[in-house]
C-alpha cells in the first residue's frame, strides 16, 4: 500500500479507501468511519453506515471530494436483521449459511441505489470533529480547553510533547496537529514506527515533532494505539502503557522523549512531577511533593538519572485537574521543584444560539412564534375585538333568552312546534380562534419567516460551567555558574 499521510494532516482532495472520513449529520452529530468499501459485510452494498438520516454505503463515500453532500442509499437493513436473528436462534448451521452469503455478497458489491431522501456531509477529520465524535472512554478534553492549553504551552511544529493520561485521545489528536512538521523520514514510509531521532538524518538536523503518550489503563492504551494507527498517525505518536507515578517518562531510546512541553491529565499530577526535572530532585523536595508516598530513592539511585526533558529549551507544563485541592498540591509541588511562571486558570466557554424571535398576534398557530401581542396597539386592538365579540355574543344571548322566554310563554299558552334555531345563532358568534388560525395558515405562504422577527442570541441550553483547572508553569533551562562564565566570555561584560 502506498504511503498516504493521515487525513488529519493532509486529507487530499478526495476521501480515499482505508482512511478515516467523518459523516456529519448535524452540527454535533458526526459519525467517524474508516472507509472500507471492500470490507466484509452483511450488506449487499458492502460496509454501510446506518444513521437516522439514511444509510450510507462506504462505496458511495470513497472517491468523493471532501465536503460533498452525499445522498443516502437504499439499503435493505431489514433482511439483514432477520438473518442475524436467525443466526442467534440456530447458532451453528445458520451461522455458517450467513457467512457464505456474506462471502458471495462481497465478491460483487451491489452498486447502491440512491434513496429518495436523506443526506449527510462527508468532511475530512480534524481534532475538532474527532472530539465531537470519538468513542468516550474517559472524560474528554474539549476544544476550548485543548486549544488554550496548546496555545499556552507554545507547542510548535517540531516540538516533542509528553501527554500522560491519554484517556480518550482527543488531546492526543490536537497535540499531533500542533507538533506535526512531517513524518519521520518521510521518503521511507515502510518503516513508520521508527522514532524521529533514530531515522537517518537528512540534510539538516531537522527534528520531527512527536507526541509521547502515556496511559496506565492497558485496554485504553491498546484502544488508542488502534485508533492512532487507523488514523495514519502511528509514526507521530508513541503510546506507552505505564504508571508514570512510579516509572517516570523516559523511553528505551535514550534520547527520547526529549520533551519541550508536558500535559498531565492525571488524578495526582504532583506525584509525577518528580520525574520531570532536569537534575535529580533533592530528597527534601521529594518529601515535600509527595509526603504520602515513601520515597523510592533506593530504586532511583540504582539507575543513572535521565531527564525526559529537552535540555536546550524551556519546558512548559500544563496540568488538568477538576478539583481545587489537586491544584493546590500541584502548585506547591511545582514551586518546590523550581518551576516558574506558575499560573492557574479555568476556561469558561459557551456556545451561542442565534434565532429569530417572532412575537405578534399573527403568530398564532405558527410554529416557533409567540402569539402574544407584539405591542400596545395590538393589545388594545385585540381587547377591542374581544369586547366587540362579547357585545355581539351578549346581544345574541339576550336575544336567545328572550326567545326562550317567548317560547316558555308560548308553551304556557299551549302553543307547540317552535323550531330550534340554535344552529343558526352559532354561526353568528363564530369562534374567532379557528378563523384566525385558518387565516394565519393561508398567510404563511406569503410570509418570509426567515427574516421576520427580532434577531436574538443567547447561551445554548447545555452549558459546561466547569471542566477543569489548568495549571501552567515553565521550567527554564538549567543555568550553572559554568554556563554563566561561558556566556560572559562569549558576549563580553
Amino acid at each position, binding site marked *: 500500500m502506498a504511503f498516504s499521510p493521515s487525513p488529519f*494532516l493532509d486529507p487530499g482532495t478526495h476521501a480515499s479507501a482505508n482512511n478515516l472520513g467523518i459523516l456529519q449529520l448535524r452540527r454535533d452529530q458526526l459519525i467517524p468511519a474508516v472507509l472500507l468499501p471492500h470490507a466484509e459485510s452483511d450488506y449487499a452494498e458492502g460496509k454501510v453506515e446506518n444513521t437516522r438520516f439514511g444509510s450510507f454505503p462506504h462505496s458511495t463515500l470513497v472517491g468523493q471530494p471532501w*465536503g460533498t*453532500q452525499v445522498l443516502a442509499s437504499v439499503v435493505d437493513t431489514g433482511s439483514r436483521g432477520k438473518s442475524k436473528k436467525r443466526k442467534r436462534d440456530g447458532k451453528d448451521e445458520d451461522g455458517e449459511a450467513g457467512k457464505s452469503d456474506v462471502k458471495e455478497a462481497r465478491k460483487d458489491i451491489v452498486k447502491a441505489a440512491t434513496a429518495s431522501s*436523506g443526506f449527510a456531509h462527508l468532511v475530512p477529520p480534524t481534532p475538532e470533529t474527532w472530539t465531537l465524535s470519538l468513542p468516550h472512554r474517559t472524560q474528554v478534553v474539549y476544544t476550548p480547553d*485543548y*486549544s488554550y492549553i496548546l496555545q499556552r504551552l507554545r507547542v510548535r511544529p517540531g516540538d516533542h510533547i509528553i501527554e500522560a493520561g491519554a484517556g480518550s485521545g482527543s488531546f492526543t489528536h490536537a497535540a499531533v496537529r500542533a507538533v506535526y512538521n512531517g513524518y519521520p523520514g518521510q521518503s521511507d514510509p515502510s518503516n513508520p514506527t521508527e522514532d524521529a531521532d533514530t531515522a537517518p538524518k537528512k540534510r539538516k538536523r531537522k527534528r520531527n515533532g512527536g507526541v509521547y503518550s502515556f496511559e496506565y489503563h492497558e485496554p485504553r492504551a491498546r484502544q488508542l494505539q488502534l485508533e492512532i494507527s487507523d488514523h495514519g498517525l502511528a509514526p507521530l505518536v508513541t503510546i506507552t502503557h505505564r504508571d508514570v507515578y512510579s516509572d517516570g517518562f523516559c523511553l528505551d531510546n535514550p534520547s527520547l522523549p526529549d520533551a519541550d512541553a508536558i500535559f498531565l491529565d492525571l488524578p495526582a499530577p504532583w506525584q509525577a512531577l518528580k520525574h520531570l526535572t532536569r537534575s535529580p530532585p533533592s530528597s527534601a523536595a521529594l518529601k515535600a511533593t509527595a509526603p504520602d508516598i515513601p520515597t523510592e530513592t533506593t530504586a532511583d539511585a540504582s539507575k543513572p538519572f535521565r531527564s525526559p526533558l529537552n535540555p536546550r529549551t*524551556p519546558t512548559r507544563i500544563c496540568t488538568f485537574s477538576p478539583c481545587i485541592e489537586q491544584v493546590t498540591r500541584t502548585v506547591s509541588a511545582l514551586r518546590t521543584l523550581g518551576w516558574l511562571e506558575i499560573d492557574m*486558570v479555568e476556561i469558561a466557554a459557551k456556545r451561542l444560539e442565534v434565532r429569530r424571535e417572532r412575537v405578534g398576534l399573527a403568530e398564532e398557530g405558527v410554529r416557533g412564534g409567540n402569539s402574544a401581542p407584539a405591542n400596545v396597539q395590538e393589545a388594545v386592538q385585540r381587547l377591542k375585538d374581544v369586547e366587540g365579540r362579547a357585545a355581539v355574543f351578549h346581544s345574541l344571548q339576550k336575544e336567545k333568552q328572550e326567545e326562550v322566554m317567548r317560547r316558555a310563554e308560548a308553551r304556557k299558552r299551549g302553543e307547540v312546534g317552535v323550531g330550534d334555531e340554535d344552529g343558526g345563532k352559532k354561526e353568528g358568534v363564530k369562534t374567532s380562534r379557528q378563523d384566525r388560525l385558518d387565516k394565519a395558515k393561508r398567510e404563511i405562504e406569503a410570509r418570509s419567516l426567515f427574516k421576520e422577527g427580532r434577531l436574538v442570541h443567547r447561551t445554548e441550553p447545555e452549558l459546561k460551567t466547569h471542566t477543569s483547572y489548568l495549571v501552567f508553569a515553565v521550567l*527554564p533551562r538549567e543555568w550553572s555558574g559554568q554556563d554563566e562564565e561561558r556566556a560572559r566570555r562569549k558576549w563580553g561584560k
Partner: protein
Amino acid sequence: MHSYIRPNTHIALRLPSGLFKIVEITPNTSINLGKFGAFNSNLLLGRPYYLTYELLDKEDGRAKTTLRVVPASELHAEALGSEHAPAAEATDESADSGAGYDIVGEDGEVIMRNNRLTVDDASRQKLSMEEIEELKKAGTGSGKDIIAKIMESHNALGEKTSFSLAKYTLRKSRKYLKRFTALPMDVGVLTEYVLEREAYKIMELREDLLGLICSWANIHCAATSRVQMAEDGVSQIGGGRWLVVDDTGGLVTAALAERMGILYPEESDAESEEDGETQFAALEEVGRALSQQQNGTTDPSETAVPTGTDTDMPEADADTTVPPNPSKPNDDSSSRPQPRKQPRPHVPQMSAQTNTLTVLHPNNQPNLSYLKYFGYDYGAPAISHPLYKHLKSISWLSLLHPEDDPQYDEPESFSEEALTTMKSSKRGTYYRKRRRWERVKTVVDETRAGGFDGLVVATAMDPKTVLKELVPLVRGGGKIVVYSPNAEPLVELCDYYSKERRAAYIAHEFGPAPQTPNQQNGMKHKFEDDAETNDSTTEVDEDDDFPVNPTLLLAPSLQTARARQWQVLPQRTHPMMTSRGGAEGYLFTATRVLPIEGRVEARGHHGKKKRKVDAEVPVQA
C-alpha cells in the same frame, strides 16, 4: 526554539509591576529600565529565557551594574514559607465563627488573626515620603532593604493578618524590587503586551480566542503536504494554504504562522547554536537553484516548493498529481524571456506552494506591523525569513478586479538584445518591474483559483461581504473562522446562514418546495425542478435577502471562551478579583461544503414533534 537570548532579536522584559518592556537586544548597548536603572545588553545575551534577574547597582563596590539570577527558591520563598505554617490553621475548621471575631483554638489561643483591629490610616507608616526617597537615592542593593526598612517602620505590622501582610509585602515589592524577568517574544507575550496599552489595535483579541481560532481553522504545519490539483488541472486544492483577512496589525497572521512553523526565523529553531551562518548559505544556494529553474524551462509549480523549511521534503513536489501544465496561468510564456545571467540570485518572494498564508488587505500594502517583533519587516523582508516565501499578500482590488490593478498589467517585455544594450540601472528597473508583476500575477491567479484549506477573518468590515467573496475560494471540507469583538456582526452572519434562510434560498433558486412534506419516504423525484432553476429573477431582492449563499456552509456556530485567572497561594486560593473587561470576543465557525445540485429531501425527525421535515434543498456552489 528560544533556547537562549540571541542578539538582534526582540525580547520582553517583565518588570515587577507586571508590565512588559520590549527591547530589541543588540550587543553592547544599554537597556534602560527607567527607575530601576540600566544595564548592558551583553549581560543578557546568550542567557536562557524565563530567568528573573536582579539589578545590582554599581554603588555596591562594583565597577558596573551587574545582574544576578534570582533562583526559583527565592522567588517562591513567600509562598513556600507560609505553606507549612498555615497548615496548622487549616486543621481547625470548626471555629468558623463568622466575621469580626478572631478564630480561636480550643485552648483559647488565637490561631488566626482577623482584621477587627485594623486601622485605616496612612499615619501608621512612620517613614515619610522624603525618607523613602532618600533611601532609594542611597540605592543600596536590590530594593530588598528598602522594603525591609519600610516594613520595619510600619507601626502595626504585628496587627496585620498573615494575608494582609502578604499583600502588603507584595505591593511594596512591586514598587521597589529591582527585578525583571526575560521572556521570549512569542505570540502570547505580544498579545498581552498590546492588550495592555492599545488593545483596539488588535481588536481586543485575547490569547484564549487566538488558540480557539487556530484550532477551529485547523491550522497546522503543512510544509510536507502534497500539492494536488483540482480536476481542471489549474487550481490547487489544499496543500496547507489559508486565506486571512487581518485587521489586527498582523497579530492573527503571527498566531497562524506560529502554528505553521513559519513565524520564527530559521536560526532560532535550530538545535545547533553556532551554525546560523551555514544555514543562511544553504538557503542562498537554494535560492540560486530556484532562480535558475525559474529562468529556465521548468514549470513554476515545481520550482516553488523547496524553501527553508520545505527543502528536506522532496515529497512535496514528487507527489504533484498533475504534470507540469504549460497552460497554467502563472506560467505565461511571455514572461519567459529573461537573461541567463543574473547579477544576484533572485529568490522569488511569496513563491511557496504549500504551508502558506494569503493575506487580503484593503490598502496598497497590508498592515502587518506586529510581525516586526518576529524579525519580519513587510517593507524590506529578509530572504532568510520563512515568511518571505510563505506569506502572500493580495489587495481586495486585485482579487476582485485584477484588470483595474495596474500592478497586474504586464510591463513591457524586451528581447535579450535590447536588454544588453540598456544601461544597467535601467535594466535593473526592468527586472524589478518584471518580478513584481510576476509575483503579483502568480498570487492573484492562484488566489482566484481558490482551493484554500481555510479562511480566518478578523476585520472591522462587514463580515457578510467578506464571506460572500471568500467562502467560494475555500475547498470542500475547509474551515471558516470569523472573529469579532462584538457578538452582533456574527449574530447577523449566523442568521444569513440559518436553516430557515437556507430553505428559503433553495426555494428561491429551485422553485417552491414540493408540498406534503410528510410523505418523505415516497417516491418523489429529487431533481424534478432542476429544469426551472437559475432564472434568478430579481437581483436586488436576492442581494437583500441572500447576501451570501447559505448552502455553502455547514454547521455555522457562534461561540466564545474566556480564561479566568486564579490566585493559588496556600490557604488563599481564589479567582482574581479583577480582570480585563471590554470586548468579550466571539467566533463564528463553519465548514465549507459542496452542496448537491438540485433538490434534496432531508430525512429524520425534526425535534420532538411528529414527523415533520424541513425540506432542505441545497444547491450547486
